[in-house]
């Protein structure tokens, strides 16, 4: 789960990381009032969960409250990479001397957190890693020991930060790590961390990604989820314990198991089709779960056929078939449906479904080809 800049920075501030004064606004009037309050120059920043806000014109400087208001009007009317802007953050503008990158994330290969710093702040760190890998400095953190002061000091010295700022930098690094651990984050980054012209260190922009599996420990953070920012169908699916990701194609897929669901998408593509979604219904496909899943798939207007790929392992195929039949009674649709059932009691399951005018298939390849053909026929 991604957090907005303003949410991330609030969390950082709780752990002692200095951030600019500012507040979030949903209207131009609010933005004007906040700018008034702050006094002086402000920056108006769109709050959307995508990168590249600056380039898209979603981050602008205002010299007066009036200008802040009119920029807010403008930005609140924008779409950035398809996402409508519904909030802006109005921050005091900082006079920047230098920009640093500082982040902490999980290193999957090393199986521990890694803290990364670079003197090249303000740009995407992946970009720096590609073009100037020697400008990226890393320390790996023992998850049982936590970040140690010498590790932060090593980073400060590696990015050649002026000595007078080391103490503050070490505090910021420690605060960032605490924020990351205490929030069950998978990423916590400050980019840029700036040294201002009056020699302060300030987290100008912040980003956090939280581990969905850790949210049960953090009901307060779970509430920060911005439903405006996500595909409504994905949120709907999550409510029912389903895992759904919308794609661009026209073949809806319903599969039990994440790996098999991906493989199903891949096979559709391999035979020339285009999957409309990833959908894992998990184990034990009850009628209710199948019905909800089917509704979610069919809400996507691009869907012209649905492919069911169910591997009956411990669940029996005839049971799943009955689940599908019951679901079909609840859902009104006339797109062709192709079912591939395999595993325990597959014959019984297939017989049940054939009666229901569903196209049955024996293999995944067979199912994919039949689905593609069904669309062409329709």
């Amino acid at each position, binding site marked *: 789960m991604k957090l907005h800049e303003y949410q991330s920075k609030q969390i950082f501030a709780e752990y002692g990381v200095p951030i600019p004064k500012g507040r979030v606004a949903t209207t131009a009037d609010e933005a004007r009032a906040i700018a008034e309050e702050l006094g002086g120059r402000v920056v108006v920043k769109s709050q959307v969960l995508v990168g590249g806000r600056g380039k898209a014109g979603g981050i602008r400087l205002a010299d007066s409250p009036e200008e802040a208001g009119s920029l807010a009007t403008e930005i609140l009317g924008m779409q950035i990479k398809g996402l409508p802007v519904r909030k802006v953050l109005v921050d005091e503008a900082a006079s920047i001397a230098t920009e640093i990158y500082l982040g902490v994330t*999980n290193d*999957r*290969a090393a*199986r*521990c*957190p890694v803290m990364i710093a670079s003197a090249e702040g303000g740009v995407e760190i*992946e970009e720096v890693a590609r073009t100037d890998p020697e400008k990226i400095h890393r320390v790996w953190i*023992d*998850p*049982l020991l936590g970040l140690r002061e010498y590790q932060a000091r090593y980073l400060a010295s590696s990015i050649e930060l002026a000595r007078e700022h080391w103490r503050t930098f070490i505090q910021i690094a420690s605060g960032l790590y605490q924020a990351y*651990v205490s929030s*069950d984050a*998978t990423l916590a980054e400050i980019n840029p961390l700036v040294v201002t012209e009056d020699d302060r260190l300030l987290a100008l922009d912040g980003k956090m990604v939280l*581990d*969905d*599996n*850790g949210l*049960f*420990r953090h009901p307060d953070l779970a509430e920060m989820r911005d439903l405006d920012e996500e595909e409504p169908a994905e949120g709907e699916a999550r409510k029912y314990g389903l*895992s759904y*990701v919308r*794609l661009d194609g026209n073949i809806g897929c319903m*599969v*039990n*198991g*994440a*790996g*098999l*669901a*991906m*493989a199903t*998408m*891949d*096979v*559709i*593509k*391999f035979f020339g089709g285009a*999957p409309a979604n*990833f959908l*894992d219904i998990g184990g034990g496909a009850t009628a209710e779960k199948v019905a909800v899943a089917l509704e979610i798939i069919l809400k996507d207007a691009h869907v012209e056929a649905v492919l069911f790929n169910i*591997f009956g*392992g*411990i669940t029996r195929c005839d049971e799943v078939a009955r689940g599908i039949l019951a679901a079909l009674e609840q859902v009104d649709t006339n797109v062709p449906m192709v079912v591939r059932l*395999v*595993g*325990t009691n597959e014959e019984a399951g297939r017989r049940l479904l054939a009666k229901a005018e569903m196209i049955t298939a024996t*293999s*995944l*390849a067979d199912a994919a080809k039949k689905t593609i053909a069904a669309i062409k026929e329709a």
Partner: protein
Amino acid sequence: MSILIDKNTRVLVQGITGREGLFHASQMAAYGTQVVAGVTPGKGGEWVLDGKVPVFDTVQRAVDTTGADCSVIFVPARFAADAILEAADAGVQLIVCITEGVPVQDMMKVRRYLDQKGTRLVGPNCPGILTPGGAKVGIIPGHIAIPGNVGVVSRSGTLTYEVLYALKAKGMGASTCVGIGGDPINGTSFIDVLSMFEADPQTEKIVIIGEIGGSDEERAAEYISDHMTKPVVGFIAGQTAPPGKRMGHAGAIVEGGTGLAADKIKALRSVGVKVADHPEQVPDLLA
């Protein structure tokens, strides 16, 4: 021969009185696995599976009393880290964690602790291990595979069943099938299992089933090139997965341009691994 488990493995089930734990304990026992004990805090002294399997309050007592040497965990995600550590502290040498949804920071701590103790963890978020005709520890349906000479290792659940089933359909059997799980940080990697298969006389060919996210497949490719003499066939799921989206498994995500299926396929092919275009091709490539 086989790897990790066989008829002599003495299995302990953590969370045995839960719905999942109890069902799969009985499935394991029915398959012929020696299920010797269960643990559920507060239920020590009860008996399950027709009064044949004693339940203990702590893993230590279960191990002391029954000599269990392998534990399979079905507890809820919030208790999983503690359950793994408890088993490790009690001296269990092989721990299989089925539980899905364990926080990644818990797993980083657990891995760090287990590495130092030398305990082997398989999972979490995995279907477990099946040695056809020998034993099963976890939830892989026993009837979908027959004994044979193919070692199977996979990050996925049902996709693995799919492959086992396709093998069986062609009369091919498995030595052992190991589901290492779909989480970004887990106990056992492809390399760990590949090295065991290489050393196992029963295993003559190997299937590796990967998916998007991380670089475990790339490291496996390197390992195959440097250390493996047995033929390896692969399949990688997620070629059509969009970047930045988690595909069900916590670990199945393309991030910052890494973890792409295409890169993994390329890495495997470059070291001589035949990679199937779709799962049903796997038996053909093995033949």
